[in-house]
């Protein structure tokens, strides 16, 4: 068709490009002109491949919301440097030079925190012109050494985060191509930093020494010219340099294999924290040296002095290859940056103080507890790297051993050939995958946990089939076969327990992420309740089996959980779980009763019913049959008859309170569990009281309003009764 069009058009006036062997050249301008005449106002050409992504990726030039501006002050780094945007030295006045150097250090710290918090490296740390041209600063030892260690630190952090692969989060974080991340000799950054630190330290000692001694150091050059300020400037610099040194040490120690550097890392973490404190203390002096610069609150400034740092231009990188999002970003304030690093160091310290317990249950518990403090990406990446290395736990414990221990397989048969089995190897991969997922941010974590439930279901079936096949094949009932069957039984029970644990974590994370609305609490607590019951069942089975093994091998399985629970001594872990079950059951029943008695009314939705909402919330659990036979009709059936009167008569919350009292002493030397028990007790107590009030006054007082709040526990709600 194009050829035809060309034929009809007058010949181009320009000299045609000579045709080659495989090509014929023609001017298409007349064709385009003609086509344009066919287009009316408002008409569009729509290419099939122009999809939503293409539309969303398009930018409108000069739209302030989209276009952060390619026209910046300078067209290149060199032009900026020529124009004096980043002078070396920063000032010929040595006092001003030191002052400005400190501002640069502070602004870099603010940039670094902003980067950690999810912005691109190009728009944050590498908005520093001094960093972009590593060689230029070589005559300025202070700035040069600082820039070197910052670059080396960024490199180390990027490598930890990319190793950890925390999924979508690191996309922007690790993008660094086109940036001068690898300065010459950056690997020796510490020796240079140490030398500079030593010099400043000597300068500090010199200015503090009595004047009689000063004469001895005649060839000695002070940091700057104003002797009255010498001490304070030396101190302000020293804490900044030392922070960098210790922080770099923290990162390298934490990367040592098998957690060997953790103890040393803790020492450096403590030093970092104390240097940060010194930096905060120096801000009063620094502010006093720059009067009149504090328009607006100091809280918003990116330096301790409140001055704008010299040598930064975020727009320069628009022209570099490193991708910058189309928007200008706001750099965190210096105060916020210090807060960020304090929190990061605290989180890293928690990781370093973990005793690398070989028990998987303890690891899972640790990660879950760690996540409660909402650690940021860098801390989570470090944890993940520590937990999983070379396909082993802590790079040390092979997964088969970890699994058999978790499954309470008796010691005598743990070293079995079974570990080479395909399904067992796959199970090991699932455990590694689970550990990695647990280190990601809760939003991503929940999505992945929901998805892997299916894998855990599948591996269970595979293992079951494999074990059955194996026991069928072997004809002699040798000791080896017995051992194999024994391991198989233990592992199968454990896989189920673990699957339900993942399901419970998936459900509970929904509260943290605020995915449930009050009208859905009933079904969520009901689901948590059925899942917890399953965990209890498997846990009890596991415990019973490990107690039985060796003694009563003939009697393998028990008929019901309650039998186990009635054993003379119920283990505290089981009682703990029972307490949670009582609370979940109590809440589900109370919510159902309130609805059934029309004390919490919800207007029906015009487009669907509760059934669809149930399917949506629990789709992934239902797909993986977790638990078996649990469905919406079952939920309906078990909640439609809930009544307040019955609930008061059989108060689940009172049961929970009783269990707490019983189990308290078993956890007296475990502060974390004791605190959790206290929270459970409070939920139980408040709900029990609320239940009594509602059942007595509710029918008589229609103005009574019941709502649910999380003021005692992060995911177990407490009923709040108010008169409207």
């Amino acid at each position, binding site marked *: 068709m194009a050829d035809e069009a060309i034929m009809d058009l007058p010949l181009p006036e320009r000299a045609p490009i000579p045709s080659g062997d495989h090509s014929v050249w023609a001017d298409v301008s007349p064709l385009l002109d003609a086509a344009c005449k066919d287009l009316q*106002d*408002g008409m*569009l050409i729509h290419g099939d491949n*122009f*999809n*939503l992504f*293409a*539309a*969303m990726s*398009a*930018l*409108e030039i000069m*739209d302030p919301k*989209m276009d952060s501006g390619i026209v910046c002050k300078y067209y290149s780094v060199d032009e900026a440097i020529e124009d004096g945007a980043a002078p070396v030295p920063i000032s010929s006045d040595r006092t001003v030079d030191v002052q400005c150097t400190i501002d640069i250090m502070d602004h870099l710290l603010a940039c670094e925190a902003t980067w950690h918090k*999810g912005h691109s490296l190009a728009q944050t740390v590498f908005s520093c012109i001094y960093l972009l041209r590593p060689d230029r600063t070589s005559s300025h030892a202070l700035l040069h050494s600082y820039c070197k260690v910052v670059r080396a630190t960024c490199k180390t952090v990027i490598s930890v985060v990319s190793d950890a692969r925390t999924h*979508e989060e690191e996309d922007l974080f690790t993008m660094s191509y086109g940036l001068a991340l690898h300065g010459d000799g950056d690997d020796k950054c510490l020796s240079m930093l140490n030398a500079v630190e030593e010099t400043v330290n000597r300068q500090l000692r010199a200015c503090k020494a009595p004047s009689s001694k000063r004469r001895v150091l005649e060839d000695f050059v002070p940091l700057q010219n104003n002797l009255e300020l010498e001490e304070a400037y030396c101190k302000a610099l020293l804490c900044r340099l030392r922070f960098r040194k210790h922080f770099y040490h923290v990162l390298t120690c934490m990367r040592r294999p098998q957690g060997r550097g953790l103890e040393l890392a803790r020492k450096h973490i403590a030093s970092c924290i104390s240097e940060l404190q010194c930096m905060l203390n120096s801000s009063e002096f620094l502010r006093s040296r720059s009067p009149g610069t504090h328009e607006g609150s100091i809280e918003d400034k990116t330096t301790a002095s409140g001055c704008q740092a010299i040598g930064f231009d975020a727009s320069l990188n628009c022209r570099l290859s490193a991708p910058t*999002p189309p*928007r200008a970003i706001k750099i965190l304030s210096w105060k916020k940056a210090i807060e960020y690093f304090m929190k990061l160091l605290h989180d890293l310290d928690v990781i370093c103080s973990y005793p690398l317990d070989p028990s998987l249950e303890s690891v899972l518990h640790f990660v879950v507890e760690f996540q409660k403090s909402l650690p940021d990406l860098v801390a989570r990446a470090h944890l993940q790297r520590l937990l999983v290395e070379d396909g082993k736990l802590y790079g040390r414990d092979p997964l088969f051993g970890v699994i058999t221990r978790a499954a309470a397989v008796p010691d005598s048969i743990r070293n079995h050939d079974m570990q080479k089995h395909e399904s067992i190897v796959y199970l090991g991969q699932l455990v590694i995958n689970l550990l990695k997922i647990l280190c990601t*941010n*809760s*939003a991503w974590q*929940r999505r992945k946990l929901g998805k892997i439930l299916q894998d855990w279901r599948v591996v269970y079936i595979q293992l079951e089939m494999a074990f059955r096949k194996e026991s069928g094949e072997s004809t002699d009932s040798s000791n080896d076969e017995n051992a194999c069957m024994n391991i198989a039984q233990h592992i199968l029970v454990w896989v189920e327990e673990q699957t339900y644990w993942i399901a419970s974590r998936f459900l509970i994370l929904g509260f943290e*992420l*605020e*995915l449930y*609305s009050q*009208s*859905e609490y009933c079904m969520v607590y*009901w689901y948590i309740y*059925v899942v917890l*019951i399953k965990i209890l069942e498997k846990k009890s089975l596991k415990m019973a089996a490990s107690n039985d093994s060796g003694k009563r091998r003939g009697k393998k399985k028990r008929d019901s959980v309650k039998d186990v629970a009635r054993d003379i001594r119920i283990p505290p872990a089981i009682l703990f779980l029972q307490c949670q079950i009582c609370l979940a*059951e109590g809440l*589900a*029943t109370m919510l159902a009763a309130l609805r059934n008695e029309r004390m919490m009314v919800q*207007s029906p*939705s*015009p*487009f*669907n*019913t509760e*059934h*669809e*909402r149930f*399917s*949506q*919330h629990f789709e992934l659990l239902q797909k993986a049959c977790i638990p078996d*036979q*649990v*469905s*919406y*009709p*079952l939920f*309906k*059936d*078990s*909640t*439609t*008859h*809930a*009544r307040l009167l019955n609930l008061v008569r059989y108060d689940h919350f009172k049961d929970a309170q009783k269990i707490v009292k019983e189990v308290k002493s078993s956890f007296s030397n475990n502060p974390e569990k004791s605190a959790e028990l206290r929270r459970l007790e409070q939920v139980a107590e408040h709900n029990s009281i609320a239940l009594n009030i509602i059942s007595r006054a509710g029918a008589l007082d229609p103005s009574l309003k019941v709502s649910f709040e999380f003021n005692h526990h992060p995911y177990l709600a407490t009923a709040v009764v108010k008169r409207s």
Partner: protein
Amino acid sequence: MEFLSKKDEEEARAASEIEYVSYEGEDHLPLIMGLVDKELSEPYSIFTYRYFVYLWPQLCFLAFHRGKCVGTVVCKMGEHRNTYRGYIAMLVVIDSYRGKGIATQLVTRSIQVMMESGCEEVTLEAEVTNKGALALYGRLGFVRAKRLFRYYLNGVDAFRLKLLFPRPDLHSPTSPSPSPYMRLD
């Protein structure tokens, strides 16, 4: 993508004067763009608007009060991982007209068309801080399916909301017999 204030049923005083119109062509585009640009945090290029209104004009509605455009909804629908899915891209009501049920009216019209066109579900994203929108969609039967970490350019998380339309086979009364421990009465 939405921004709404708290709906208040009592305040639907002027609601009867609001006129709802289906997208009628290029003349409506500047009205839609003006509203969205002003009220939503996310910037959209002209291509994004045209992408939606040219391909799915039947899913786009505008609300007028005495000739002035005070609200709009922009949507799409299509195949998504083996389901036919509707998507609400933008929903805006100008500040002084909020709380009168206009957004509910607008979005209900779009969802209705989606349902009639055979969609199995409807999705959208809303900022986690946008309580008004979350409440509105909650009333319409949407569930918060996922939280999307730092979804927006401004760094705020989003919820992915989902509305599942009833499927005939979902409501069959074949329930397995409940085990005794699951009965809560």
